[in-house]
C-alpha cells in the first residue's frame, strides 16, 4: 500500500545500495570488548588505517561485550539473522563453532605460498587451539597465558630473596609457608592464591601442565581428568589450602584476586598475563612476574581469542576479511597491539621488531609470557566445550570446598565428561 512515489523512492534506494555494494565490500567485525573501553580506541585506529590502505573495504567494528556475550550474539545471529563476517572469539569455542557449522577454515582462502607461510608464522602453542582435523579454523590475536606475580616487599619481610621467585612446587609451598602470617584466630596474609571462580579449569591447567599431563586429546573428543598426574596436581592445590593452610580456604573469587594482591592480603598470585597492565598501574610496591613453578617440567596453558570467519557471508566478504586479518596480524601491528594491551604478541618475529625490543628493555616482565610460550600447551577445549569444562570446574570446586576428595572429584568429572563426549567418539 505504498504510493507510487514511495515505491519509486524505494526502488532508487535499492539500486543505489546495489551500486554501492559493487564498489565497496562491507564486512562486519565483532570484537569481544565492551563499548568504550581503552581497547576500542586501538581497534578503531587499526580499522581506520586499514581502510585508508584498502579503499574498497569497509570494516564495521561492533563491540560486543565479553567473550561469552559475543559468542551468544554471533551464534544467535548465525541461527536466525545475519552473523558477522569475522569475529574474535575464544580459541576454545572452536569446536562449538565447527559443530554449529558457523565458520569456515582459513585454508581455502590461503591459496598462495605466501599465505601458507603466514599461517605458519604464529607460535605453535597458540596454533594448538586453532587447528583441528588438519585445518586451520582460527588465527591467534588476543592471546594470553598464566604467570605468577609476587610481592617483593613481602618476600623481603619474610626473609626470602626478593628477586628469586619459586622455581618449583616444593619451593612454592615452602615460600608460601614463610609468607603466611597468622594472628590469634585469623590468617592476616596468605602465601599464595590461585583463583577458582569463572574458569578454574584454566588455572588448574597451570598445575597439570607442569605436572606433565594434558587434559584432552587433540581431536577434542576425549579427556583425562582421572589421570593420576591430574589428581596429584589437584591434591597439591587442595593441600596448599586445606592441609598447609597457606592458600585461602574454599573457592577464591577471580575478580578480587588482583585487589587481594594490592591489599597485601596475599604474597603470590597466579593469574593471566592480561592483568599485567592493571597490576603495573595499581600495585604500590615492587612486584615481580615469573613463569609458573615447575613440577616435572615448566608449563602453562594459553588462553584468549582468535579470529574466525563466518560461513554465512559472501566469498567476496570472506576475501576482504581475510585481507584484514592478515593485515592486523603483521609483525609490527602484533607488536604494537601487545605493547598497548598487555596481551602476548602472537608471532616470534613480532618480538624482534625495534619497538618491541625497546619496550622490553624498559619493562622486562613483559617478556616472561614470551619465554614461557615454548612450554605452553593448548587450553582445555573439546566438543561441547562449556559442558565439559563445567564438569571439571564443578569437580575442582567440590574438592577445594572439601565436599569431595581430589580422587573422587576427578573421577566424577571424568565420568561426566566421558558421558557428554560419547556421541563425538567415532
Amino acid at each position, binding site marked *: 500500500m505504498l504510493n507510487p512515489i514511495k515505491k519509486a523512492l524505494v526502488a532508487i534506494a535499492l539500486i543505489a545500495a546495489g551500486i554501492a555494494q559493487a564498489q565497496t565490500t562491507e564486512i562486519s567485525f565483532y570484537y569481544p570488548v565492551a563499548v*568504550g573501553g*581503552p581497547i576500542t580506541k586501538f581497534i578503531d585506529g587499526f580499522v581506520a588505517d586499514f581502510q585508508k590502505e584498502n579503499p574498497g573495504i569497509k570494516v564495521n567494528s561492533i563491540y560486543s561485550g565479553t567473550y561469552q*556475550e559475543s559468542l551468544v550474539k554471533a551464534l544467535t545471529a548465525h541461527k536466525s539473522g545475519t552473523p558477522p563476517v569475522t569475529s574474535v572469539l575464544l580459541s576454545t569455542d572452536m569446536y562449538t563453532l565447527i559443530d554449529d557449522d558457523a565458520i569456515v577454515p582459513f585454508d581455502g582462502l590461503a591459496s598462495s605460498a605466501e599465505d601458507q607461510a603466514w599461517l605458519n608464522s604464529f607460535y605453535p602453542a597458540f596454533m594448538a587451539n586453532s587447528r583441528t582435523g588438519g585445518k586451520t579454523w582460527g588465527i591467534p590475536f588476543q592471546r594470553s597465558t598464566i604467570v605468577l606475580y609476587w610481592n617483593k616487599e613481602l618476600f623481603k619481610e619474610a626473609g626470602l630473596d626478593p628477586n628469586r621467585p619459586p622455581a618449583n612446587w616444593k619451593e612454592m609451598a615452602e615460600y608460601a609457608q614463610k609468607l603466611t602470617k597468622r594472628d590469634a584466630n585469623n590468617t592476616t596474609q596468605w602465601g599464595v592464591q590461585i583463583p577458582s571462580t569463572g574458569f578454574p579449569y584454566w588455572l588448574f591447567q597451570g598445575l597439570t601442565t607442569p605436572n606433565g599431563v594434558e587434559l584432552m586429546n587433540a581431536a577434542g573428543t576425549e579427556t583425562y581428568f582421572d589421570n593420576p598426574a591430574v589428581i596429584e596436581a589437584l591434591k597439591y592445590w587442595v593441600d596448599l589450602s586445606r592441609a598447609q593452610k597457606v592458600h585461602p580456604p574454599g573457592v577464591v573469587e*577471580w575478580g*578480587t*584476586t*588482583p*585487589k587481594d594482591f594490592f591489599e597485601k592480603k596475599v604474597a603470590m598470585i597466579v593469574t593471566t598475563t592480561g*592483568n599485567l597492565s592493571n597490576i603495573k598501574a595499581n600495585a604500590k610496591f615492587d612486584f615481580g612476574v615469573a613463569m609458573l613453578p615447575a613440577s616435572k617440567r615448566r608449563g602453562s596453558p594459553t588462553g584468549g581469542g582468535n579470529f574466525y570467519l563466518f560461513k554465512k557471508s559472501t566469498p567476496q566478504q570472506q576475501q576482504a576479511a581475510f585481507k584484514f586479518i592478515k593485515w592486523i596480524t603483521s609483525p609490527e601491528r602484533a607488536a604494537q597491539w601487545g605493547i598497548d594491551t598487555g596481551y602476548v604478541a602472537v608471532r616470534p618475529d613480532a618480538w624482534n621488531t625495534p619497538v618491541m625490543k625497546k619496550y622490553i628493555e624498559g619493562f622486562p616482565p613483559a617478556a616472561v609470557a614470551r619465554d614461557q610460550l615454548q612450554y605452553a600447551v593448548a587450553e582445555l577445549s573439546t566438543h561441547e566445550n562449556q559442558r565439559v569444562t563445567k564438569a571439571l570446574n564443578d569437580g575442582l570446586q567440590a574438592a577445594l570446598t572439601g565436599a569431595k576428595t581430589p580422587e573422587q572429584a576427578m573421577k566424577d568429572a571424568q565420568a561426566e565428561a566421558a558421558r557428554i563426549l560419547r556421541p563425538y567418539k567415532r
Partner: protein
Amino acid sequence: MSIVVERSIPGRLLEAGGAWLLGLLWILPLAYAVWTAFHPPEFSTRFELFAPLTLQNFSNAWQAAPFARYFLNTFLLVSLILAAQLVIGTLAAYAFARFEFIGRDIAFMLVLVQLMIMPDVLIVENYRTMSVFGLVDSIPAIALPYMASAFGIFLLRQTFKTIPRELDEAARVEGATALQVLWMVYVPLAKPTYIAYGLVSVSYHWNNFLWPLIVTNSVTSRPLTVGLQVFSSGDQGVDWSIITAATLMTAAPLLIAFLLFQRQFVQSFMRAGIR
C-alpha cells in the same frame, strides 16, 4: 496518618532503633558507592575520615563509555515503555473491571500468564521474533515485549474495581461513551495507582539488563545498564572505584527524582486515601 495510637516510651525507642538499624543496613550499598566513588582507589576498601576526595573516578568512568548517549537511550526507552504500558494497560484493565464480555475470565487468566512468565525468560524465542521483524538493535525491540504489562493491567483492574459503579452509571446516564467514562471517572480516581505503577515501571526498566543486552549491538540503542557492565568483572578483575562512580551516575536521575518528588508522591497517596 495524623493520629498515632498510644504506645509506651521504651516500645517507641525500640521501634525507632529497629527502623534505624534496618535503614542503615539498607542504605549501606549506596553509602559505600558514594564513599568509593569520591575517593582514590586505594581507599575503596579502607575507611579513613580524612581520606582525600577526588572526582577522578567519575571522569575515568565517563571517558570509558559514551554515557551521554546511553542516558538518552535509557530516557527514550523508559518513556516509550511507560507511555505504552499506561495506555494499553488502562484500556485492558477497564475492560476487565467493568465489561462482562465473552471469554473475559479466560482472557484474564491468559493475561496473568505474563505475570509469571516475564519476557526475561523467553529471550531466545523473542530474539527470533525481533529478527523476523527486522527490529534487532533498536530501542523499540527492547521495549516491545514489555509494552503490555500484566502487572500494570492487574494493578489497574484492582483499582478500577474499587471505584463505585454508581459513579460510572451516573456518567453514562448523562450520555458519556465508554471511553469518556474511563477518561473522566476512572483515570482521575486511579491517579495514586498510576503514580505507584509509574514509579515501579520506570525503576524496573531503568535498571533492566538481560534483554537489552541480548537484543542490542551498538551504542545507538544500548541503555545505561548495558553500558555499565563494561566495568563488571572481566580479565582485569573488579575495579570498585569506577563501578561505583558509574553506578552513581546511572542511578542519579532516579535518586534525585525521588528526593525532589517524594513529598508529592506521598501527598498524592494521602489524597487518594482521604477520598
